């Protein structure tokens, strides 16, 4: 086991030994292709899906059952319906999520533009989720046809409730968090309490910019969100976001891309703050990288920077932080400058386990 690294120039495997002390980097797979998200199926431990683009070619998905020994391209990659009224064309598969544990073979893919797609055969043939893509509010929620982020608007953070396959969440950058309780047939915004300070009304029903949303697997009524406007927690069924980032140091703030959860303790989460002031450099505040951890569900935060460089100017993207299931939990992040940092003691200390890779887009335990 180890990490699978999706980068702007291909896929790498970074395998660790049992002690997570010795790491071995593979040769690149798909060198020169954009690997947006590469994810292992936790239900069978073998099926690996890779969301890929290649220069100016259309997007596609590859799958492998032998850890990249061989790859197969999806027979029918994710795409909008041909001839549809909005004439949408998928430019990127941005996010991959395995489906419910009782539905082996089911996966979901989020795209740019913000379409949702699903497969029932492990990623070989994909179809649009019509209830989302053709929802009468979709053009409004997705701000169509405006592309509100530099690389295009994207649908991410596809979450399937482990108790109920019909209950799902998605995040739109921009657009907000949305929920379905009927397997995607209908959707509604879920943004109460979340700020969108870039609007005249900072508490709109939708239009927010969630960067990363996570549901705690052991306490599925608890959601965490790293948003463009802070760090939040929500307890269901109430459905109101509480800005737990208010407890972060004021000189650091609570802006960032990723948020990762402890696999067993619902009160523990890690974030990687970035500079969201002025023109939004998105590098670490004051160029001083640090992971922050909460052990009390956001009531307080502790800085974890032992081993990290004193000054550095990279960004950690929303899919580029992950955890393993060990005890103590391993925490990992990849940087836009191509380094992978690992902690085998839940963030207390860090060391660089791979360097000089291409810009890292995603990091997953696999």
């Amino acid at each position, binding site marked *: 086991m180890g990490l699978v690294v999706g980068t702007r120039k291909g896929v790498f495997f970074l395998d660790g030994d049992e002690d997570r002390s010795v790491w071995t980097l593979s040769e690149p797979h798909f060198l020169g292709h954009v690997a947006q998200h590469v994810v292992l199926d936790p239900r069978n431990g073998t099926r690996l899906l890779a969301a890929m683009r290649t*220069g100016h070619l259309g997007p596609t998905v*590859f799958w492998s059952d032998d850890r990249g020994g*061989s790859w197969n391209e999806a027979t029918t990659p994710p795409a909008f319906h041909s001839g549809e009224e909005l004439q949408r064309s998928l430019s990127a598969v941005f996010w991959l999520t395995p489906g419910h544990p009782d539905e082996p073979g089911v996966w979901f893919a989020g795209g740019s533009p913000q379409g949702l797609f699903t497969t029932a055969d492990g990623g070989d043939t994909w179809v649009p989720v019509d209830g989302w893509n053709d929802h009468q509010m979709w053009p409004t929620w997705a701000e169509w046809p405006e592309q509100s982020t530099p690389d295009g608007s994207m649908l991410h953070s596809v979450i399937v409730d482990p108790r109920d396959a019909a209950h799902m969440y998605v995040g739109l950058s921009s657009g907000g968090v949305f929920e379905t309780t009927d397997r995607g047939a209908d959707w509604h915004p879920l943004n109460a309490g979340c700020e969108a300070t870039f609007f005249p009304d900072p508490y709109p029903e939708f239009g927010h910019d969630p960067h990363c949303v996570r549901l705690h697997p052991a306490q599925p009524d608890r959601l965490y969100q790293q948003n463009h406007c802070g760090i939040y927690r929500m307890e269901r069924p109430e459905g109101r976001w509480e800005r737990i980032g208010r407890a972060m140091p004021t000189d650091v703030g609570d802006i960032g891309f990723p948020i990762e959860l402890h696999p067993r303790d619902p009160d523990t989460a890690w974030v990687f703050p970035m500079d969201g002031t002025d023109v939004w450099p998105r590098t670490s505040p004051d160029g001083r990288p640090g992971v922050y951890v909460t052990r009390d569900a956001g009531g307080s935060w502790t800085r974890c920077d032992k081993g990290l460089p004193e000054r550095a100017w990279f960004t950690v993207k929303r899919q580029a932080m992950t955890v393993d299931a060990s005890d103590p939990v391993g925490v990992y992040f990849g940087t836009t400058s191509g380094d992978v940092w690992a902690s085998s003691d839940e963030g207390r200390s860090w060391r660089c386990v791979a360097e000089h890779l291409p810009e890292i887009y995603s990091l997953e335990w696999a």
Partner: protein
Amino acid sequence: MAVRRRAPARDLLAGVGLRVRIPTPLRSYTNASVVDAVGSTVKELLADLDRLYPGIRFRVVDEQGRLRTHMKVFVGDEMTRDLTTAIVGVEEVTLMQALSGG
């Protein structure tokens, strides 16, 4: 790293008609820089290429039937982005993809 491709839908030799020059980003589908295919329009030619090399068309043409940005087709020496362009009086078609990037 190996990418397994689906088998061609028919005998390659049965499609002799036009020589199609394939840009490097698409050669993982064809394993060749020049292939044979048939079609009286660019649209028909791309459909035949997809029958021969499954998956290649969607990398070139989007789900609404539009040639993707920065893709061009040369019918003989004439550049076109119109898939209805007739292929008449030429023996060679070139698919071209810009390699702009960084």
